[in-house]
């Protein structure tokens, strides 16, 4: 679905946001794209969607060079950004004007999403709150039945019940021919939703594993005393420690994504040795 080889891109010369990146993503996944501010997450999404042209390297999304923005490619890709503007239409008018561009647009599913998010066709888009606008865009994006849906910080601005609705809707929207890539800082909102997990740091992919492999190789537990050996990463909490260690018992523990993320970013070499993979410094 997405094939990237040695991709580089920068907004300014000598300041590359993506550095010789390699990535391969198949269909039927909800990928989590995690990284610190400025790690290159949004730029990677833009490159995948064809909104920037790489300076070097190769990128193919759904078999197309995305930067050529072929209409047949564009109707299979939806990107919902963190910040956006919507035209001065009603929900119904927007659907009437934009949905015909997507030949598999599912009006029944769209109405179902609207109901789920408590929106109606006669509401003006400009009159909606930020969270409602996001829900509308998500409903539209998922109803297009596009093969690739890119979501940049989708849970920002959503209230707690809306985050649950979001998880439910997204989990049900993925199928064998569709992939969702969710770029986020809100790691906790994505627990039990994203798999595999891609972590970016300074324009490079430093971690790309599925949950099965992660829980096979790593284990998280709480202890009162910090062990002197075997701890890859630890965080303190009231009265004890949360520690990330190599999984030697073979027992799968619940993977706290926030701890995992902090460990990967802070202890690249140790994580590298566990997964025996190339970690780019």
């Amino acid at each position, binding site marked *: 679905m997405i094939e990237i080889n040695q991709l580089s891109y920068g907004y300014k010369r000598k300041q590359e946001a993506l550095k010789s990146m390699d990535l391969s993503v198949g269909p039927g996944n909800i990928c989590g794209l995690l990284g610190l501010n400025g790690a290159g997450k949004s730029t990677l999404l833009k490159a995948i969607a064809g909104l920037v042209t790489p300076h070097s390297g190769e990128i193919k999304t759904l078999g197309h060079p995305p930067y050529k*923005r072929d*209409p047949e490619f564009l109707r299979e890709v939806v990107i919902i950004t963190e*910040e956006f503007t919507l035209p001065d239409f009603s929900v119904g008018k927007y659907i009437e*004007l934009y949905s*015909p561009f997507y030949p598999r647009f599912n009006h029944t599913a769209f109405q179902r999403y609207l109901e789920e998010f408590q929106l109606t066709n006669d509401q003006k888009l400009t009159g909606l709150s930020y969270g409602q606008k996001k829900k509308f865009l998500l409903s539209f994006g998922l109803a297009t039945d596009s093969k690739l849906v890119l979501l940049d910080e989708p849970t920002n601005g959503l209230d707690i019940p809306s985050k649950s609705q979001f998880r439910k809707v997204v989990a049900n929207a993925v199928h064998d021919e569709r992939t969702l890539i969710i770029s986020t800082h809100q790691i906790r909102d994505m627990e039990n939703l994203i798999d595999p997990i891609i972590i970016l740091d300074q324009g490079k992919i430093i971690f790309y594993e599925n949950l099965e492999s992660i829980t096979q190789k790593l284990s998280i537990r709480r202890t009162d005393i910090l062990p002197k050996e075997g701890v890859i990463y630890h965080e303190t909490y009231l009265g004890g420690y949360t520690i990330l260690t190599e999984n030697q018992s073979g027992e799968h523990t619940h993977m706290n994504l926030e701890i995992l993320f902090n460990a990967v970013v802070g202890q690249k070499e140790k994580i590298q040795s566990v997964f025996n993979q190339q970690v780019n410094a």
Partner: protein
Amino acid sequence: MHSYFDISRFWLLMKLELFKSRRGVAMTLVIIFGLSFFLGMIVDLAIEPLTLVFDHYENYTFSLLIGGFILSSLAFHGLRNTLTRYQFLMVPVSAFERVVCMWLLTSLGWILVFTLTYTLYTLVANTIGQLLFSHVKFNAFNPFSEQAFTPMKYYFVCQSVFLVGAAYFRGYVFPKLLILLIVTAFIALIIAYSFMHDVILADDHTVEECDLENMPSVKTVWTCAKFFFWWLLAPINWVLTYLGLKDQEV
């Protein structure tokens, strides 16, 4: 489905762009007709009481050009900032379809819509004008006359410059383009003067009135300039517009 042009996709885009621009076009028409009526006709007749015959061709020319240039400079309004660019660039249409669509709407579409509404406006304006200024003869506006057709030809060519501006400038397209055109015109004048200072300093009113047969180099430059304006300027600008749209990024 063809990557560059598909008629069904094209009509969907036309429908979308027409709906999006409906308010802008309506406001432009209201402003133009308001200005034409109050400033171009009423005030004009009031401050020149000796006027015995009034026709609308001068107002028509001015309104067709200015209104069309403003609308053309808004042709790719979705490119104005990063947020609007996402939505603009992700609509599943080709850059070629966008250029053809906006060219049709702002060039031929504007000429047709404006001329038709202007004709209707003159019927109303003449009736009211006759009631207010009984001594003035109000000539009917004929959209098929040479006086109406000439500005249409000039608009058809010059409008393409504003489409280029709309594809390359981010925001404030009209004023930015006007500044660029003024600077370009100034440079062109200096170059023209260096080639044609004898003609410019002569007493003739237009270049056509000059004795160009005795100035072959000036005649060649003038012929080339006219050929460039009427046959090359618009196609070059359409190609530039396409290239500008094709290479857009967020």
